[in-house]
């Protein structure tokens, strides 16, 4: 009698715990539209193999830029397959940050894609340095773009820029120091900016990422393996819920299937 009542108490407690825990982080797995990403930048984002444009940025071939590989990484996870996560390429070759401010505002104000985005992958500044722009100016413009993104409810992933052996006069280290500072300050103040240190991740192997040369035939832009490495850095910087299943996937699926059955009963 005593054992039976203990068993009853323990199992009931366990079920209650499971029930409560299964709702964490339920909101993160709720909706498809929280998962798509907008890639915004210059030619390091645009890449080369563009078939044309659409209402959702560039339409590239499978091997284009980093967006193809990032989509593959995200959708490789069985849990994410149900969402079909998309990375929309809004890169524009040659763009400087003062140009990016206006274009980003236009893209977000006039967003016509039928798939909403939750994250912006922001990487710009290398063309400003190419044109000998003041780093303070670039910082100001990146902060403007962060503000524009925030105003549209996006979470911001801000990247440092990769090396560029073609233009040794570029103060890439100086700009990246500024970018790290921006990310830290913005994260502390608003909590919605994540630093993606592309430079630190890619610089040690930049020679292999530009040998053989990629589609731009220079040392500024990576080859296919370089773009894949870039995608992996973005991937690692995304929040956990984008990369792994919920803590109790079985329970979530159970709830989902119950909800689906209820809907079908209603329809019938």
């Amino acid at each position: 009698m005593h054992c039976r009542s203990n068993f009853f108490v323990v199992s009931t407690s366990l079920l209650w715990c499971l029930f409560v825990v299964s709702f964490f982080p339920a909101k993160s797995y709720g909706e498809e539209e929280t998962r798509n990403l907008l890639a915004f930048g210059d030619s390091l984002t645009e890449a080369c193999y563009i078939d044309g444009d659409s209402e959702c940025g560039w339409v590239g071939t499978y091997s284009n830029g980093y967006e193809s590989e990032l989509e593959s990484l995200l959708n490789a996870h069985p849990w994410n397959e149900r969402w079909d996560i998309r990375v929309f390429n809004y890169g524009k070759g040659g763009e400087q940050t003062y140009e990016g401010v206006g274009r980003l505002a236009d893209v977000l104000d006039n967003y016509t894609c039928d798939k909403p985005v939750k994250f912006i992958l922001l990487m710009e500044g290398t063309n400003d340095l190419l044109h000998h722009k003041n780093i303070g100016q670039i910082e100001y413009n990146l902060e403007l773009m962060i503000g524009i993104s925030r105003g549209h409810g996006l979470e911001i992933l801000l990247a440092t820029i990769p090396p560029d052996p073609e233009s040794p006069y570029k103060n890439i280290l100086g700009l990246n120091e500024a970018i790290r500072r921006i990310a830290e300050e913005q994260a502390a103040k608003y909590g919605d900016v994540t630093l993606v240190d592309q430079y630190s991740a890619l610089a040690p192997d930049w020679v292999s990422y530009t040998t053989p040369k990629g589609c731009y035939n220079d040392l500024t832009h990576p080859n296919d393996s370089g773009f894949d490495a870039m995608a992996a850095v973005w991937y690692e910087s995304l929040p956990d819920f984008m990369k792994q299943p919920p803590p109790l996937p079985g329970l979530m699926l159970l709830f989902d299937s119950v909800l689906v059955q209820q809907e079908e009963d209603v329809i019938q």
Partner: protein
Amino acid sequence: MQRRTIVYTGLISCFLVLVSTGVNAFSKSHGSSGEISDIQIVWTDNYDESEQVYLSHYQKGEWSLPVQISKSNTYVFHAVSGVGSRGKRWAVWTRKDKKNHSLQWSVSSHSNWSPPQEIKSGLPDNRATTMIVDSNNTPWIVWEGARDSYSDIYWSRWKEDGWSAPERIHGANKVPDIEPELFLDSSGKIFLSYQTVQQKRYVTVSKSWDGKKWKSVAVNPGTSIKQRLFNPKNTIKYPQFIQKDHQATLYLRRNGTAGSTLLSTY
């Protein structure tokens, strides 16, 4: 039957004459949009491992041999040039000193270039210069000058004994003012456009020189002046010796109108 054939032949002939006349008119209007008085190009490159400023001008369908103007042992960039109706050529560029960026200038006299000298602005950072030479053969320059993160737009012009004291064109603000461009229209009026931030977006500001001061104008004439100056593009042979066209600035004077453009955007 014969009459009909004659009529048809006549109509076709008329059509062909009209078409060929139209084609010639088209070619005429687009093949030579006004005579080009001066074309010159100034650029920076490191042919011998030191970055220097070079200039070439276009005459009789050919570019002259590049002439080295600077003698710098540090980076030089943002080189611009101008040429007046009497053929005097001017060049201004930015030189990176240890911590500062200073403006340097030189002028040619009988194909000899003067030793570069600094244009003292009192500012640690000076770059993105634009230049025109007005109808009185006076060079004007406008550039981005900065003490801190926020650049402002400054201007100066040549007076008999040197450059006028640099002055800021606009009031004090806490936003970047950038990308100045100077133009001379066919009436000899000087126009300036630049970008500033208003309501967190870059907007274009346009001003013209009224003889005493810079006055705001509602419409930026720079786009149409550039259109008239730099089109059609096939009238000027692309210079083969330029390796980095984003570091080269093309200056044109045509029918009194003058202005510059980056070669990479030409």
